[in-house]
């Protein structure tokens, strides 16, 4: 079995306590929630934090609260998110995204906060130490070159979170708490297009809460492309949320893409829909726009060119579903489950 490196362990009971420990330990400490991302990464020596600060016992992170919209604690497991009636009713895209993360077992362990802070991924990186040694390592860990594009100055590892694109399309904000205080940022602004510094969260900050605006008049959806019906990270995520006028005219539209960049990509593809009805032409136009900005890299599963070629089709599935088309058969063929 692959073994973990040694580490110290804290299990605080409150956010304040956790923040204090983080501040005291400095950047060599890391938060651990479900551990479904961090533990495999530690086994592969991507990270070797000296101290882990566990959030599992922090009950205040496991709440779902109503307001003008909905507030979700970062410590909720993805299973809890999926089973929330409020999420299912008002935030379909989030439900569909969370329901397609990994597998049942991993969703039982993995949390919403962990999913939003998920490390970026790359098939040259997500290998054990010996394998990485055989390619003489890479820029993201232990080396100095990017094997995906050897001329690249930055790491091109892929943002692989499913819930982030869905939440971005829903206009979510997140709260970051440290011993110094707290701040709220638009989720779309939490990320940077860099495989190494992919998140603007400071090491001493804890993501505590996701707040979602009221969704009256909005409809949302999430379509995930991956090889298999379970287990796999996305190689393309399409999240779309649209506000319709009573006659079906689009009043606002947000389309975000996952897994085609080092951050979840908030696109402008939705803008072209505003003031129109979701006709086949309008859908094709938005699909084409989204496809243009998608930049898949050759560091995930499946063929790189093909992954770009199908973006427009997937955007089409999402928009047609929002238009009211019956997409259940297509969904079953792509996702191999009803959602």
């Amino acid at each position: 079995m692959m073994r973990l490196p040694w580490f110290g362990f804290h299990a605080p009971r409150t956010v304040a306590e956790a923040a204090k420990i983080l501040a005291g330990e400095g950047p060599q400490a890391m938060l651990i929630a479900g551990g479904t991302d961090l533990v495999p990464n530690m086994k592969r020596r991507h990270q070797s934090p000296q101290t882990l600060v566990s959030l599992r016992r922090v009950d205040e992170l496991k709440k779902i609260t109503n307001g003008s919209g909905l507030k979700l604690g970062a410590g909720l497991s993805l299973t809890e998110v999926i089973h929330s009636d409020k999420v299912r009713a008002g935030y379909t895209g989030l439900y569909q995204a969370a329901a397609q993360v990994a597998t049942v077992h991993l969703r039982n362990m993995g949390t919403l906060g962990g999913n939003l802070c998920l490390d970026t991924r790359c098939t040259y990186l997500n290998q054990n130490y010996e394998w990485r040694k055989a390619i003489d390592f890479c820029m993201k860990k232990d080396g100095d070159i990017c094997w995906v594009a050897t001329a690249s100055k930055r790491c091109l590892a892929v943002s692989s979170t499913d819930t982030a694109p869905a939440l971005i399309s829903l206009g979510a904000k997140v709260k970051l708490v440290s011993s110094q205080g707290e701040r709220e940022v638009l989720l779309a602004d939490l990320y940077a297009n860099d495989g190494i510094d992919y998140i603007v969260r400071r090491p001493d900050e804890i993501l505590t809460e996701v707040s979602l605006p009221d969704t009256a008049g909005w409809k949302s959806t999430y379509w995930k492309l991956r090889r298999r019906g379970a287990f796999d990270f996305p190689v393309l995520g399409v999240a779309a949320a649209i506000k319709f006028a009573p006659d079906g005219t689009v009043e606002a539209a947000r389309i975000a893409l996952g897994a085609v960049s080092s951050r979840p990509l908030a696109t402008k593809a939705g803008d072209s829909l505003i003031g129109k009805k979701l006709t086949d032409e309008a859908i094709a136009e938005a699909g084409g726009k989204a496809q243009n900005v998608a930049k898949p890299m050759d560091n995930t599963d499946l063929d790189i060119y093909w992954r770009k070629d199908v973006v427009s089709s997937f955007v089409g599935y999402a928009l047609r579903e929002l238009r009211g088309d019956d997409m259940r058969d297509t969904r079953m063929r792509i996702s191999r489950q009803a959602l």
Partner: protein
Amino acid sequence: MNAPEKVKPRTRFDTVGKPRRRVDGRAKVTGLTRFADDLVLPRMVHCKLLRSPHPHAVIEAIDFSRAKDFPGVHLVLTGKDFPVSFGILPVTQDEYPLANERVRYVGDPVAAVVAKDEQTADAALGLIEVKYRILNTVSSAEEALANPEPRIHDYGEQGNIHRLQAFEFGDVDEALAKSDHVFEDLFFFEGNTHLPLEQHASVAAPDGEGKLTLWSSTQVPHYIHRALSRALRMPAQHIRVIACPNGGGFGGKCDLHNHEIVVSRASLILGRPVKICLTREEVFYMHRGRHPVLMKMRTGVTNEGKLTGMHLQTLLDGGGYGSYGVASTFYTGALQTVTYELPRYKFDACRTFTNKPACGPKRGHGTPQPRFGQEVQLDKIAEKLGLDPAEMRLNMVAKPDSLTANWLKIGSIGLEECIRQVVDHSDWKKKRAQLPPGRGLGLACGSYLCGAGLPIYWNKMPQSGVQILADRSGQVTVFCGATEIGQGSDDMLAAFVAEVLGIDAFDVRLVTGDTGLTPVDLGSYSSRVTVMMGHAAIQAAERMREMIVDAASMELEVSPERLVMAQGRVFLSEDPSKGMTFAEAVVYAETKYGTLGTVGSYAPPRAPGRFKGAGVGPSPAYSYTAVVVEAEVDQNTGWIHVPRIWVAHDIGRAVNPVLARGQVEGSIYMGLGEALMEEQVFRRLPPKMSHALVHKFPSLLEYKSLTSLDMPEVFTYLVEDPDPNCPFGAKEVGQGPLLPVMPAVANAVYDAVGVRIDEVPITPDKVLRALERKAKGETPRVGPDHFPKVPYPTPIYVTTPWEGGDGNETKPADRKQAVAS
């Protein structure tokens, strides 16, 4: 010699044919089964291997002084401690437990550390310094042909060609010249691996008297026993190999593996048990899986769709070592004649060495690749000739009790019935070529061995032996070297004995896969267990039955023929109330005969082929399968969805129908994975910057195989036409059903969207590329576009049975004479 005794065929069965819970089922699902990884012995220490980070290099120096002095480390071993090479086939002794001076793939073991625990051993590995001199690498079969230097091995045919083989059965060029049509196609089958859930583990322990016991995840304890004795230079009678129940094998646990030798040696040196558990990455490096094979197939047919002759050429990428590769190479051609009538056949094969983990036997061993090619080609032929692919196949199914062009003896054939079953149930006649665009049906067939006719080392002894002990308590203990790898070997053994002795299968105690206690059985490979072990078990059980019935008949004062053994009793057939319990009968038998023990054994009949190379292909019987796959293919994305599969398998007789169906469905699972996604592929980095040649994704997450959500609905039909050469008529079911799946998927994709993907895996990007070609008016196909020049030798020419052959090679001079006369 070991021919099964003449026993009157049974007409009614109590155990055989009844769907039963398998005898080892509960222990498995409740976690009580002890796999090798579960073993813990007093004073046990742990081993880890240091593996090469280079695909091809010479080891110049190893400094392990820091590792040796690391607290908790007991022993460090390197290639110097293992001067003797090994290999599973006697002709390819080309591996070293730890590399002696050369490493041949990333992952080749270089040094071993034994320490108080795994973590310590792992840490100490990092302290070993190895100085390598890098050599150029070969990454594919074609590169191996193009680059004879540097040679990966200093043996073989030439350069980096490991093995060349060529056979011709009847004049194929002549047959093709006379054919109404000749079809020529190129196909490629990518390599893939076994992916057993259980990772290999072994524990070796000395007994203090110079003897050694090795518990291991292995399918072939007997072969391991022999090879280990040679590798350790230790007499076989001092070594005992115990095959633990395997959590899946599929051919990946058929070699003697480096780690098995290393822990054996370490335990002898240290005088304490040494354990090793491979990580998932290491299992990918052990590999021995499906060879990548490039194929060229020239096939002649008549206007009516009858085959006239076939010329098959194969090129195999063997990886860094021999393994079973010589046999795999034969198998890319040997069974091509068993499914359909084929009057003439020519077969050239070439296996190359490359700097990758060694390929070897995986479920179907060598035959799925040419089966894929032939079944896809038949689909093309049917279309060209305007025939229904099912009808065309029905018209050319091989004949029962016949010989093939390459001198294989076929017994029963249930293929026609298999084809009819899947055609009827899938509504083929109404649906093929008639479903709306994007949906289609594809059909393919196959056949497979029920046990390889010859063992891997030459001998005439039995290939399976069974010993039965019964005593006054009524208990029956059965000893057999056969090995449980999840397929149900133990259940078969219990079932055969229980049937003959009229007792419950759960009342039979089994001791299996232990070279120290059990009679030799060659192991779980080539689908041989049910047939060979079955014969041996029935023979031993009949002998036991005879003694028990004899003693009981004296007690009951009736003639033995009038007694029946069933339901745990021995009783009079015409008056079941007159009789006694099984245990009582055993008491009388033990009283009469003394301690009760019987043995049974089996060796397959001698095959009719006499030419050099005739040893690969013969089998006591062949199983047959037909599959129809339904596919839905998206025209815009190439995305493939398989909602339903119909499969009919000619099993002769299903001993335990539950297990039989499980094997069929497991084959569909594995076959569909191979068809759509599984690939053991490697990655080079820009050559100017790096010499790396690494496995692309040695992990369960990124090596893609189906999840349960990806399984289609499977409709399984067992065709039972008992084969007289098989125990109670039962043929194999472990491998055959896999073979038609991949070509049936390819044919279904064609029926759905009209594009040919002449290679596996069939992925959506390939389908989309072919669809784009179709839209542009180009050939709607993705597949290999050329076949390199291979220096195949002049073939061994053998005259076919129907052209006056006698099974021997016909020398060129005799051939000329025959033609002249």
